[in-house]
């Protein structure tokens, strides 16, 4: 059995240099987005099919009048209880034994069931390929014994990658150190949604970082109702056949999918 892998994002160490954001684009050969400065350092403003990871710049304003600046690396958390894989009608989203949740671009029909149901709003629909895309923890690198690109460039060691057991061990160690420093740290993703394969060490509560305190899957009823609306559409999509296949093979080449 393959050992479960995980990324550990130690938010207390992140200083927002965004080396990870560029490394991701470089390795996955993603296009730069045309952006504008809108009053925050955060750019692009949100995840997209071409931006699989993003540092969120958060400036809390109501804290003893002292400025603060928080940075959180946003990306797919690769849940064990991966609702995206569960709702995927075509089986394009695979939960691999090592924990990586991976969208097979050759099978994805672009129904957006995962887009609608992900509790973290991670998967993004790509109008060019007609598929949904997101972080795949650099599966191509990982399969060859390398760390994901983002983890190789982080100057402060805020992004680590290895066996999930080892990442948890480090997280607990860091949690203790931060506790001693007066923080109330939380290992986010240890238990959440069955355990994630990209965990956060948060120095304080999750909501300040824009994360749900208790991430939950949508109820089955909601999922089912939503799917009922999608399935007839899927049948029509399937009928388009050859055209879609061509598009898929293009996107497959782009992401280096299996």
């Amino acid at each position, binding site marked *: 059995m393959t050992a479960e892998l995980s990324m550990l994002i130690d938010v207390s160490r992140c*200083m927002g240099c*965004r080396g990870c954001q560029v490394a991701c684009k470089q390795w996955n050969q993603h296009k730069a987005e045309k952006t504008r400065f*809108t*009053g925050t350092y955060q*750019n692009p403003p949100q995840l997209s099919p071409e931006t699989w990871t993003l540092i969120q710049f958060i400036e809390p304003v109501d804290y003893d009048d002292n400025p603060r600046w928080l940075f959180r690396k946003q990306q797919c958390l690769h849940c064990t209880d991966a609702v995206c894989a569960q709702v995927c009608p075509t089986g394009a989203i695979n939960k691999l034994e090592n924990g990586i949740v991976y969208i097979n671009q050759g099978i994805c029909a672009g129904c957006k069931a995962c887009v609608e149901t992900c509790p973290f709003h991670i998967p993004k629909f790509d109008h060019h390929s007609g598929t949904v895309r997101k972080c795949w923890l650099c599966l191509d690198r990982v399969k060859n014994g390398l760390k994901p690109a983002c983890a190789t460039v982080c100057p402060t*060691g805020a992004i680590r990658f290895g066996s999930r057991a080892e990442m948890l061990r480090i997280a607990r160690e860091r949690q203790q150190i931060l506790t001693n420093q007066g923080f109330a740290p939380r290992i986010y993703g240890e238990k959440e949604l069955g355990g994630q394969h990209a965990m956060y060490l948060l120095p304080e509560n999750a909501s300040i970082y824009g994360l749900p305190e208790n991430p939950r899957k949508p109820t089955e009823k909601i999922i089912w109702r939503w799917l009922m609306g999608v399935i007839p559409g899927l049948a029509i999509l399937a009928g388009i056949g050859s055209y879609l296949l061509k598009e898929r093979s293009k996107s497959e080449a782009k992401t280096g999918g299996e």
Partner: protein
Amino acid sequence: MTNHWIDIRNADRIMIIGSNAAENHPISFKWVTKAIEQGAKLISVDPRFTRTSSKAHIYAPLRSGTDIAFINGMIKYVLDDMEKNPQSYNMEYVREYTNASFLIDPAFKLPADMNGVFSGYNPKKRSYSKGTWSYQLDSDGIHKKDKTLSHPDCVFQLLKKHVSRYDAQTVCNITGTPADVYNEVCRTFAESGKRGKAGTIMYAMGTTQHTYGTQNIRGYAILQLLLANMGVAGGGINALRGESNVQGSTDHAILFHYLPGYLKCPEEDDVSVDTYSRIKYEGKNKDPRSADWWGNARKYIVSLLKSWYGDKATPENDFAFGYLPKREVGKDYSHISLFETMYDGDIKGMICLGQNPAVGGPNAQKERKALEKLDWLVCADLWETDTANFWRRPKGDDLDDTVDPASIKTEVFLLPAAASMEKEGSITNSGRWSQWRYTAVHPPGRAKSDLWILDRLFKAVSARYKNQGGPIAGAILDMAWDYGTGDEPDVHAVAKEINGYDLNTGKLLPSFGILKADGTTSSGNWLYCASYTEAGNMATRRNGLDPTNIGLYPEWAWCWPVNRRIIYNRASVDMKGRPWDKKHPVIVFKGGASDGKYISRKWIGDVPDGGWYPLMNPDGTLRDDAKYPFIMKPEGHARIFGMGRVDGPLPEHYEPLESPLTKNPMGHATRINPAIKLWHEVRPENNKIGTPDEFPIVGTTYRVTEHWQAGAMTRNLPWLVELMPDVFVEMSVELAAEKGIKNGNKIIVTTARGTLEGIACVTPRFKPFKLNGKSVHQIGIPWHWGYTGLARGSSANCLTPHVGDANTMIPEYKAFLCNVNKKEVV
């Protein structure tokens, strides 16, 4: 850096001031983070709350340009606390290793007694005669000292008197720092003064780019000496150099006032090697316990001339010393001065290698205009730079409304250059490590290395001289220039020449200790002698062993001088050679002892600053054959009182040239540094200076992680442009409210020199400063943008003035006056 990057992890206290290390030197935070996790406290001092501040235990805001007040107040705190709690400080270090005990000429006067200037000031010349800034000597020429530190003429008492005016309330009224935060900074950093504790100061351009930048650093030096933080692991004053190889380029004399290895540039009255060596370097010390290392300079200048002129440098022709250019005494050839001269039409041509002054130079509109006066301009760069493109630059803020190229006569050559990964050679990092790099990929197209470009240029100039002759042709034609026969010059031949040879045997030299003044040795840079020896190219070493466990990694690359990783390290031990910090010993004396006397010499750890015996035997008797630890100063002691600078032996607070205060808040009549050159007075054309009634807001400039310097390298990379696409202006919520500006609005910043269009970044990270109850606003602008490349925008340097530091002439980019308004939408 006196120390090096990895060493930051050894610190107990880290003060980052005049630097935004997390953003501009992200890798430093690998070690800052490590130190914090081992219990270190991080203090961030900055006008605005930065990514560095976000990681700090204490964030102390200060108004741009008030570092001296800030530091002098800290010095006062330490001196006051020393009286109450001497056990919390290392008084032996202060007494024995610094010039605290030295007596100064009784005629010397402090600014408090001289209406803001030190004794010796000549207001007409705007300069000092330094006669009274000198030590008292006894009849043998030895410095008079008072080891009790109580004599009113001793440095310690003079310092005490000087900083007594900088009480916390006065300081905070100048800097705008909240008093409680300031006190916490003082208390926290002073804790590094205890024996066995270390505090480091990390600084960068926020410190230097002021009209008193050098004095800012002097303030840090004084503080660090009082806290016994120089020479120890986790201590030091650490300049984070702004480019990967700035340290290397400085070592190899990119600045006008130095030859390689920081040998002083000869001046017109240096008529021979002998006068040069005698006047500038020799006989400065009579104390036998002082090594006075610069007394060896004659060996270094002769070896340098042998390296440059080879067989043509002989004792008979004074080693070709006459060929060296001599600068006019006191004449300034720095950036501002060059561009002022160019503006006057006195400079005909310019070569810009990897420099983009049209964006990076102060008062950029004037400097762009100055380029029009050139007959020719050569730019060697990776991309077409704004400088190379100046002949079709925009007239104002509208980037598409350009000047008429037909009106500009300058002939511009653009040479495609190789990037650092496309060529082999050394690069010297801030920690003085010379690390060899190899060609990873070949340069694209016809791009060439700088070495190739300079080699061809030299050969072409040389051929022209040979055929047509010219003034001082020997200076060119007699030069030893042999870097192989290949298309690419042999970079190893250059590196070996820099190291130097024994000219009798032809062998590479192992150390500068054996350089000679008789012409039998060569060395292109004495500081790098030992970098490339018969044992090989030391810069290529990649041994990751750390026998000392303090991160010295002595066999990783090579470090000047003589692979010494922490300079002044003989101050890290007590007079008997035992480390103050037992946990992080830099060096330890392990010589044999008998009858209470050391009888053999052996140091372990880092390469010591001289391998002499410790000053004191185990039985407490002083040794005659020992040397004081600060070997680069003639008196062997670190200077709390520093007579080497042109603008005062101790730092005094002055306002920036453009400041919101019309008077010096220290209560005297000297508002600005009295020794700076006032370009707006001597050359008023296009050198306007603003006043606070018209421009009430303080402006400053800085960099962001995502862009590099003047931007040519990064504004053309789509992934980086995506992260930081536009010029933005950071300002407080309060200022934005006053001006009716909303986050993301287009705004116009105006100074007496020009305007800038940018996007407002309204943030609680900037706060108005309260100065004596009055609110003063400050804004900040990254300066990376220009009119050429993928991401274009106004250059912040269109706003900054032509005025520089009194000692170095580094421009005052960090503090000027401006106004801000919302851009009217047509």
